[in-house]
């Protein structure tokens, strides 16, 4: 049960049950839809930008606990940052969930809670879908992104 406890950390369960920044910004400066066909997770991300910085962000849709918590913590973590800064954070998260990162990395902050995902290769895409969707919103591509 211990690795299940690592995956379903209290903070993850808390964000999954009561996600922060849930909803849609309307109007918004950028938006995208993400879809994981394997498990049916669907995430929408909307952004407000000012001088290259995220001033507000919301997500909506339906996903598993990992996906929802990842989206929730992502929205908390990216406010006030530029795209380049966000890219660096995503790279760290990506490394973390694929077992290549350092869970002690102070730059991760709360996002370090996703370290348990690396023991569950089938769930990596659940954690990364919100980030891919955010990237797609930056690209302002209106085509839905897919994890496949």
């Amino acid at each position, binding site marked *: 049960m211990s690795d*299940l406890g690592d995956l379903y950390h209290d903070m993850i*369960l808390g964000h999954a049950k009561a996600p922060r920044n849930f909803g849609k910004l309307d109007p918004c400066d950028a938006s995208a839809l993400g879809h994981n066909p394997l*498990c*049916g*997770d669907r995430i929408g991300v909307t952004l407000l930008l000012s001088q290259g910085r995220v001033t507000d962000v919301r997500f909506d849709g339906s996903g*598993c*606990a990992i996906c929802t918590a990842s989206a929730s913590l992502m929205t908390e973590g990216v406010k006030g940052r530029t795209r380049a800064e966000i890219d660096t954070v995503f790279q760290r998260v990506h490394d973390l969930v694929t077992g290549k990162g350092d869970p002690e990395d102070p730059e991760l902050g709360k996002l370090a809670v996703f370290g348990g995902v690396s023991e569950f290769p089938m769930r990596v895409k659940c954690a990364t879908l919100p980030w891919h969707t955010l990237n797609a919103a930056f690209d302002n591509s209106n085509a839905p992104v897919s994890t496949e």
Partner: protein
Amino acid sequence: MSAALFSPAAPGASPSASPGSPELRAQFPILARKVHKQPLIYLDNAATTQKPQCVIDALTHCYTHWNANVHRGVHLLSQEATEHYEGARKVVAQFIGAALPEEIVFVRGATEGINLVAQTLGRTQLSKGDEVLITGLEHHSNIVPWQMLCAERGATLRVCPITDAGELVPGAFDALLASRTKIAAFSWVSNALGTVNPVAAMCRAAKRAGAITLVDACQAVPHFAVNVQELDCDFLVFSGHKLYAPNGSGVLWGRKALLESMPPWQGGGDMIASVTFEGSTWNHVPHKFEAGTPDYPAVAGMATALQWLQAIGLQRVQAHEAALLAEATERISAIKGVRIIGTAAAKASVLSFVIDGVHPHDIGTILDRKGIAIRAGHHCAQPVMDRLGLAATARASFGVSNTSADIDALVEGIVAVQKLFGA
């Protein structure tokens, strides 16, 4: 060619052990392995079944003793391989009550069988404005080939709606059959919900309307006896891997006259009578539809699996699985916060469910760590999920080796999921 050639070769692998018995479970070597240090509880039979030792042995036996290309040599090995391949055709014909072995076309699985019919009969029979009728319960493999065909021919795909319980809306199928309905294709048993459709009545109604019928029997053949002549359909397909047989074995059954009237599908070796650069002539059925070297060991393994299943007895299998499904339904629906999805009056093998506040994908991960293999997702039946307003369900599906103890584990697992999520 004696059927005995396909008898389970493994010593002590008595084919007639009763469903769920320790003797029968012992025939599945994979049940001895551990998953995350836990004994494997395999409840994903609708996705694919595990293989009994006799089927695994049949594959090894083919490669060890008879390996050769079929229909292609004067040497003894090729002759023996051909005898086994054609012998398997007789075993399959007998298994589904077909009038003639030539009515059995070996394909890679149900998907290939449906595509074959869509691209041969479908292309020649369907004109602009014609209709193909399916149901709202279909697996993607019985939707997409017809969608592609309809787009190509300018025809319309009609879908018989389903109720909240996951049954076909009463009267809707008959009402949708029209003079322009050329093909009606439907599943016998829904893989997502377990609903057993009234296929005999549907075949009769379609026939009255002049439509050709194709029955997707993937989730039927592993669970009860099937007889194509009693059913009176025109085509029936199933995949071997869902029926304790090797991957890559599958069956398209069609009436001989219909198969003869259809153009060939893929071109290549074995499907021709003669080839010149000016043109070719086609082999007779079923070879006309079996271009290229077939997966002969998989086919021989399928014959072994069918004989093994018949030795156990499909009536016993049906009774055993019905008892498991009834027990699981009762116990799981009694858990607060759990809802069974698909409550048709007639169901087989499949139990789909959701837990309040927990995504099915999370259920699947947590049960997996307890050694319990279930399916979580849309089960390749996205329209079923959309109709019921769900992104996904968790699905337990039963087979011959399952027991009440497996249900105990599932119930405990569900309770543990709720505990972890504080649901």
